[in-house]
Structure formats: C-alpha cells, structure tokens
C-alpha cells in the first residue's frame, strides 16, 4: 500500500518558473504542491546574481503588474540597481538589479511558506501517471495526466501538473575534457523524469548554456578596475515597492589583455564547445569567451564585469567570461588580467547541456496539446533567463488553475506584453537556440513600457485574483493621477514668466501654447517644468502628493514613473498612434479563430511543408498562422476561406 497525497495542482521544480506557478495557483485558491529536489536551493540563481536587464526588466514589471512575485523578491534583496538605456526613449528603459544570491533564496522561501494553500515537498519525480481519454475529438488531447510517481515510493495525485525542470532534464556538465551528468554544479540531474517525459513522445531538442568562473573577492585587487556604481535613485521592479532595503554596492568593469587572448587561442581546441564534445545549441547572445575570440578575431579586447554575489560573501561572478575550457586554462585566463593576478577561483565555469521540449507542442496557455492537464514552463520550453522562466511559470500556474475551475484560458496578446510575445513566439515558431527576450522582438514596443505595465496588466491580475486590495487601490490611485495630470497639462498654459524662468524664454514661437503642446517640442522635458505647474498641482487632490514632492524637491522613483507615463504619451503621441494603427490591423487577424476541426490536408494550394507546420502548431487564429515561418500571406487567405468552406460542408 503506497503512501499517496492529493492536490489540485503539482508544480515540479522550484526555480524561477516553479515558484511563480505555485504561488499563482495557490493564490487562485487551488491546493498546490511545489516539489523540489532540494528544499535549500529554492529559487537558486544558477547563473548571474542579477534580475532584469533590457527587455528582461520589462518582463519582471509585467510579472509584478499581473500579481507575480519576482519583482518584490528582487527589490527586497537588490544590492545594485541600474535603469538601463536611459540614453534612449522611455519605451526601452529597463531596470536591472544585482541581487544577494543567498538572500534571494531566503526571501523566496519565506514568501512561499507564507502562502496559504501551498505545500512544499522535497522529492525527486521518477515517473508520470498518464491515462488514456476515450472519445477524444480529432486534434484534441487523447491522454490525460493524473499524478506523479516519486522516487521515495509516494504517488502524488494531482489534476494538473506543471513541469519546470530548468537545465536538470538529462543535464550534462562539460568542463574542458571532463563531463558528468548534473542538473547544476553540485546537484544531480533529473534522469528518471527525463526518461518519463521522453516516453510521452514529445519532440525534444538538446540545448546548451554556460556559466563563468566565480572568484574570491579577497584575492582581487579592486583598485585595478573601474567602479560601476548603481543609480543614486534606484528604480525598483515592483509597483508595490516603496523603498530599497539593502545596502547598495558597486560592480567593477574589466577588460581582457592580449595575453588573455593568446591563452584562449592556444587552448581553444580543449574547450568542450570546440572539441565536438557538445551537441546542444548554445545562445548566440551569451557566447563563451572562447567563442567571442574565435568569431571576432579582430576585436582586441573584451569587456567583462566583476559582480558581487551578495553582501555576506566574498564570492564574485565574472560576467562575460562564460567558458567550458579546462580548469587550469580558466585559472591562467583569470590570472592574465591585471588586478586578478592573485585571484583564487572558488568555482570554475562550465557548460551544461540539457533537454528541452519543442514548444510547438504547447498552446497559448502553455498546456501540452496532446496531454490534458500537463503544462510546461521555463527552460524546458527552450528559453533562457530567470525572467523568461518566471513569466511562463506565472502564465502556466494561472492557466492550470483556470482550467481546473472550468474557465477560459488566460492569454496575452503581442500588443499587451512581452510575456504574450514570448509565449506566442515559442509556440508558433519553436526555437533552436535558448530563447531570450529582446525588445526588437516586440512589434509594438512603444506601447510595452515599464511605466505602463500596470495599466496593461493589473486589471487582468485583479480579475484573476492575484492582485490584493491594497495593490489594486494603489493602481486606481495611479490611474486617477494619470488622468488628472494629463488634463492639467492639456488645459493650462504657461505664462511668459514661466517660460523665461524655465529657460525656454527664447523660444518665442511657443508663446501661447499649452503645456501639453510645449512638451511635444524635442528640447522640452517635463520634470524640470514641474515647479511651474505647482499651483495647478495643488488644485487637484489627486496631484497633491506630486505637489508636495515638487515642493520638497525630492521626486521618488515611483512618482517619477507616473510623471514619465504622462509625458511619454503626450510627447510621442504621433508615434504611439502609428503603432496603434498596426495593432488594430493585427487584432483583426487575431479575431478570426481557426476551428480545431480544420483539415489542412485537404486545402489545395498549401505546400506540403506548410501543411506539416500548420498541422504541428495548429494555430489558434489566422493571425498566429501568419506568424509561422514560411506561411505566406496568400496561404493565410487560403486558410481563412477554407474555414468557411469546410464549415459549410460540415453543416450540410
């Protein structure tokens, strides 16, 4: 008689995807289990100790706006905050924070343990319990998952399962000529689960990623490096964060020397990447140092960063020096850099290969199309990055919960968030290298800003039950602020004295213009003008907070965020409108659903290759069909017309 446990939802893996999935499911009222191979390594940052970055910072804001947790945890343990891309426009400003790696685990575990309805279990999953579904409709799931077998003999029954295995699925570490199975350095791989998933017959591929050596900070001569301090006024990830609690520290910028390059060139053949030992495909945006030197032989030096792993450790992460060269070569490379002559390596860099599932097996809710109740999120779907993983975890958790409640799935459009783009890209195109988010993947980038993530997503989060009353009240307050401030700028005009005092007096052509019109001038920005708007601000209760901050001469980053939203939408109204028109066009295509019974096989005029792709992806809408590589606009028209024809034939 085996010991069994009963849950609504079980989440396998407690990394960045798993934590979001489990908390979302529990908050939505489902009895949820979170299963990890090691309770002490929940939310481990396997690679660099930082959250955010360009486009990734956008993802974290979105997670937060929807009611996820990554932003709050990162804010509470961030030790160096930088807002990136401020030399460009507000649409691509993106926050990044160096985090205390150990504290991140602690804070996340605290949060998980405080969540009602969430049960954390340490166990290794050794098998999946799958049943056949009778009378399944064509092109619909024919099997259903009902539980997990655990290595300790337990059976864990759950109505929905979310698998988030990261790099653990048949993980294989390479360090020079050495290689051994592992999920992460020092942790075993998930081999049994890998076999169980393989037995499901899902298409898989082999990916690779890498990580750099970690050094002992006490053996580094810090004076040899340029200091990179954080922002004086940190920009938090979460709309809910009021202040940054941790002491702030700096990173340092370093460069390779000609000697470094010599060592690497002489040893490239010993790198696991170049010896042919690795079959997985690595990310081009995160190449190993040996890769950079082989592919860009003309570049005489390469930049890297020395990043603290925490406040209570001397461990230093060498960002930009990911490598799979042998240990002794890594040692030589490190020592070839002035300031690191005596540096001690705490852990070597390594490359890791792992299995991922072809994400075209999934639908927009991250459910495996062929197996009812099974959801996948994170690196298993071919992505890389904590943020990419977390947003998928959140969406998978939400959808598993909605499905159990009998509700419609929750999906985000490409015009609503980077999260929507990421999932749509993955399930429509799959990926043949670890997928990372870039702002250039967003067609409607100008609308997907960090300052309006709440307006885009918080109403959804509220409806789903993920945004609590306090956060919702704050959101509504920000909305009222936005409208009040916008109408103040539209309705009032500066006086000639205002203009002179603001240093705009010589712009005679602006006499008589309202504040909003003034803002459209490229040389005019809003923040320095706030003191001249003081009387107007004081007249509106919704703007009193801003008035007080202006008078005190101290704008908080939260208020600054709100001011920027209003400014951006006035200043770049023309560009925003241009994008809005494209959005409208896209939405029309998105509104035409493709029925699951559609038979691509009998549509003459579609090439065999197109038919195969369409059959595999089974796009939900005409719009999605058009985004599948190789499907031409004419083919999309053909599908559109064929829906009608086949519908009429079915009816008769």
């Amino acid at each position, binding site marked *: 008689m085996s010991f069994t446990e009963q849950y609504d939802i079980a989440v396998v893996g407690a990394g960045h995807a798993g934590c979001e999935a489990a908390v979302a499911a529990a908050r939505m009222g489902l009895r949820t289990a979170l299963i990890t191979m090691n309770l002490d390594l929940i939310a481990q940052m396997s690679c660099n100790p930082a959250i955010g970055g360009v486009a990734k910072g956008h993802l974290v804001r979105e997670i937060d706006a929807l009611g996820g947790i990554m932003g709050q945890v990162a804010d509470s343990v961030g030790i160096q905050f930088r807002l990136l891309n401020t030399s460009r*426009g507000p649409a691509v400003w993106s926050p990044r924070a160096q985090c205390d790696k150990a504290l991140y685990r602690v804070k996340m575990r605290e949060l998980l343990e405080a969540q009602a309805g969430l049960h954390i279990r340490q166990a290794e999953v050794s098998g999946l319990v799958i049943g056949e579904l009778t009378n399944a409709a064509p092109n619909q799931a024919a099997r259903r998952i009902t539980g997990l077998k655990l290595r300790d003999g337990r059976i864990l029954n759950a109505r929905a399962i979310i698998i988030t295995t990261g790099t653990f699925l048949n993980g294989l570490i390479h360090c020079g000529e050495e290689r051994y199975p592992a999920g992460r350095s020092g942790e075993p791989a998930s081999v049994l689960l890998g076999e169980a998933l393989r037995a499901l017959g899902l298409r898989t591929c082999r990916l690779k990623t890498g990580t750099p050596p970690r050094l002992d900070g006490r053996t580094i001569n810090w004076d040899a490096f340029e200091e990179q301090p954080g922002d004086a006024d940190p920009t938090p990830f979460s709309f809910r964060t009021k202040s940054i609690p941790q002491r702030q520290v700096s990173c340092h910028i370093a460069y390779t020397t000609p000697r470094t390059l010599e060592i690497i060139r002489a040893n490239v053949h010993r790198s696991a990447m170049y010896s042919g030992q690795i079959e997985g495909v690595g990310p081009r945006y995160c190449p190993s140092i040996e890769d950079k030197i082989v592919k860009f032989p003309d570049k005489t030096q390469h930049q890297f960063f020395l990043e603290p792993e925490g406040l209570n450790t001397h461990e230093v992460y060498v960002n930009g020096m*990911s490598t799979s060269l042998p240990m002794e070569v890594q040692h030589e490379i490190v020592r070839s850099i002035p300031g690191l002559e005596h540096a001690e390596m705490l852990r070597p860099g390594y490359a890791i290969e792992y299995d991922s599932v072809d994400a075209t097996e999934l639908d927009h809710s991250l459910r495996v199309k062929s197996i009812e109740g099974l959801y996948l999120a994170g690196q298993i779907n071919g992505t890389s990055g904590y943020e990419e993983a977390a947003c998928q975890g959140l969406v998978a958790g939400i959808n598993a919960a909605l499905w159990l409640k009998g509700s419609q799935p929750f999906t985000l459009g490409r015009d609503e968030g980077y999260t929507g783009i990421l999932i749509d890209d993955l399930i429509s195109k799959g990926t043949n290298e670890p997928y990372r988010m*870039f702002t250039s993947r967003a067609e409607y980038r100008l609308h997907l800003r960090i300052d309006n993530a709440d307006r885009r997503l918080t109403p959804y989060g509220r409806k789903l039950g993920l945004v609590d009353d306090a956060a919702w009240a704050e959101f509504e307050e920000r909305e009222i602020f936005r409208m009040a401030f916008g109408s103040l700028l539209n309705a009032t005009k500066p006086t000639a004295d205002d203009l002179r005092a603001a240093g705009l007096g010589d712009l005679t052509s602006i006499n008589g213009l309202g504040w909003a019109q003034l803002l459209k001038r490229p040389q005019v920005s809003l923040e320095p003008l706030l003191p001249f708007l003081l009387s107007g601000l004081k007249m509106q209760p919704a703007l009193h907070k801003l008035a007080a901050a202006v008078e005190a001469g101290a704008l908080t980053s939260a208020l600054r965020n709100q001011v920027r939203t209003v400014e951006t939408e006035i200043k770049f109204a023309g560009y925003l409108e241009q994008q809005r028109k494209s959005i409208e066009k896209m939405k029309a295509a998105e509104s035409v659903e493709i029925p699951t019974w559609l038979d691509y096989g009998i549509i003459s005029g579609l090439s065999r290759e197109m038919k195969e792709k369409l059959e595999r992806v089974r796009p939900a809408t*005409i719009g999605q069909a058009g985004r599948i590589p190789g499907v*031409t606009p004419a083919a999309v028209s053909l599908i559109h017309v064929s829906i009608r024809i086949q519908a009429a034939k079915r009816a008769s």
Partner: protein
Amino acid sequence: MSPVETIAAISTPPGRGGIGIVRLSGRDACPIAGKLVELRAPLAHAHARLAWVLDDSTPPRRIDEAVVTFFSAPNSYTSDDLVEIAAHGSPVVLDLLLRRALGLGARLAQPGEFTERAFLSGRIDLTQAEAVRDLIDAKTLAQARQAASQLGGALSLRVQPVKRALLELIALLEAGIDFAEDDLSVATTEEIARRINGLLPPLEALEKSFAGGRILHDGLTLAIVGRPNAGKSSLFNRLVERERAIVTATPGTTRDLVTERISMDGIPIELVDTAGVREALEEVEKIGIERTHQALADASIVLVVLDATAPLNGDELKLLRAIEGRAALIVRNKCDLPRAASPQPPLPSSLAVVETSALTGGGLTELRAVILKLATGGAAAEPGALTTLRHRDAVRLALAALKKSAEANVQHTPHEMLLLDLHSALEQLDELTGQTSTEDVLNLIFSTFCIGK
C-alpha cells in the same frame, strides 16, 4: 484581410472600354472618394451621384465626368463601405484615380481581394466561394512564381544593396537598444543621418524608373492608321506573323478595330488595325472611322501607313498633323511597285520613315527595330526598372518613411521611434524582394557585433 484597411483597384479590364470603374472598399472609402471627385450631391447608400473627376494639381482641375455610387457598410458587396467611381474608360483617367487613391492612404487590392472580402463577410455562397479559393490558389502560385523570378531578377539585384544597407542600420540601432550593457558605441545622430541619406538617391532613381519600366509590364498599344487600301492589314498580318486581319483588294475592307497582342523582344505590344480614313460611304464605315480616331488618340505609338505609289491626299495630311509631337513613325508601303514622286509637302523630319513591302516582307526587319526603339524609349531599357504600380507604391512609401525618420533623427528623436519608420521602410522593400523576419535582424546583429555580457 483586415476590414479596417481601405483597398482600391480598377475593376474593369485594362484598356479602353466604354466605362471604367475604380472601386474603393474599407473604412476610409468615403473620405478618399470625396477627395478624388467633386460630388454634385452628398453620397447616400445605394444612390448614384454625378461628379467631376479631379486631378492632383492645385487647385484641382476637373478632367472628366463620373458617376459615383456608394454602398454603406454592412450592406455592400464587401460588407465594408464601398464606393464605385465610374468614369469614361480612358486608361489615363482611371490610372490617375487609382494612383491618387493610393496616395490618400488606400492600399492596392490583391487580385480577388474584393471577392475574398465579400466571401468572408458571408455575402456569397459556397460555389462562389470555391471559385474564390481557386483564385487565391492561383494567386499563391503566381506569387510564388513572381517571388522566384524576382529573387534573381534585375529588380532584386538593384534593391538588395539598399535593403542590406537599411537592414544594417536597423541592426546597428537595435543592437544599441537590446545590448545596452555591452560595450557597443552608440550611433550618433550624424552617423544615422549619413546612413539614411545614403539610402535615398538609389530609391529615388528607382521610383523614377517606373514610367519607363511600366511599359514592360502593361505593354503598349500601337495603332496602324492610314487611307483605305494602303496595306495596313497586310502590315498588321506581317507583324502578327499570321493571317489575322482580312485582306482584300477592295478599299474599306476593315470596318472595325482588329487587335492582336504580340511580343517584340519581350515587350508586349497590342497591335490595333484600323479602318482606313476617308469620307465614309455608309453608316457602318462611318462608325469604323470614328473608332479609328479613338484608337489613334489612345495609342502609345502611331504607325501611319502611306501608299508609296500614290501622292499624299487630304485625309493623310490630316493624319500627319494629328500625330505631331507623338510617338509615331511613318511607313511607305508597296515599295515593290514603282513609286510616285516624293511626297509633297515633305514628311516631318522628326519621324522615322521606313520603306516596306507588306507583300514581299521587305523592310519588315527595319520596321520592327524602329518600333522597338520607340517602345523602349530609353527608360525601359534600364535594368531593374519598376514595372508595377504596386512596386512603385512600395518604393514611394519606403522613401516617405525614410524621410520621416531622417527628419526625426535631426530632432534627436529616440532610436526606438526612428526604428518604427525604418522598419516600415523595410517592410515596403520586402514587397519587392521578399520577407525580412525578426530572426534576420538578430542574425545580422550577432554576426556583426560581439555581444555577450
């Protein structure tokens, strides 16, 4: 596919018909129509209105009369707002209407797109729908073929370098945004300006090539005119290389227009044989001669056939006056027979004169060479010239987008906004040479810049 987009097309077959129709369908159909014509009464659902067709000069001039019919959404063929402008069938007027509509924001309809919209909005039944599907099916094939031929074609060779340079600029700016943490240098305003400005001249030259290149695509018409029995039909048959027109010794045999499409060195030419010009003897011939004058007015090239054995008569002198300043040539036929004295007054020196014998085929080689020279007239000989209105439109929109981004750049507009217009320019060039995907941009970034913090 999107009902919000306004599409436009000439929906009567090319060439001169009694009436030609330009159709507009979509959200902006009414406002655009309102600018194309001067209505005598406001548009109302299912009512025809008289209107003047306006040209694009300022102030606009009335160039033709038209009947404008409006069908309001959803009670129209396409279920969107639909406007039909029926003008006199002159290709020039229809062309102007269509080009102006495109200039006012309409998009050139794909073949079958009006019907497709009608079908998708449930206006037509299944059998008709299957016909539509076949049409799209054919379109798929045609597109594939066209794309294949464009790929290695002269136009593609001409556009590719410009597109590549644009893509490089896009990659430079995108890399700057997405890899802000890497030590890439930020592109300066001057650098961006230099790069955008470098794209303009080749595209402007391409846009100008349209007038000439168009002949290649649409072809041209050549009208053969002259007095009765000068040998027009014999020459026509010689050029067609078969007995197409009826030839007899009786003057005035050809009563109506006889047309045949031929290809000279790959240039499609519509040959039109006409009734001989003289004082008509009866009603049928009179109508035939009126049509001759019409054909003469519409033709891109006029070939006047003179009888080398007879002196010029009054009708011929009138004909010679009518072709002054036009693309024309003169043939002195029947050169196998004893000739009359040199024509009086002398033939205009600006026109090529070819001596032929339709009977023996003498002079035909020279005649073909002269026609070809007139047809290509320099510009069309240019390799990679634009030949379709769709392509011309794409180049024009690409240029407009590039100019907009150049202006914005001077104002130090943030890069992600400049990119909006740069991407839309790229999308337009894609119309000429095939799709560019996000993956292409990323590939270029990763192969150009050493990325990887």
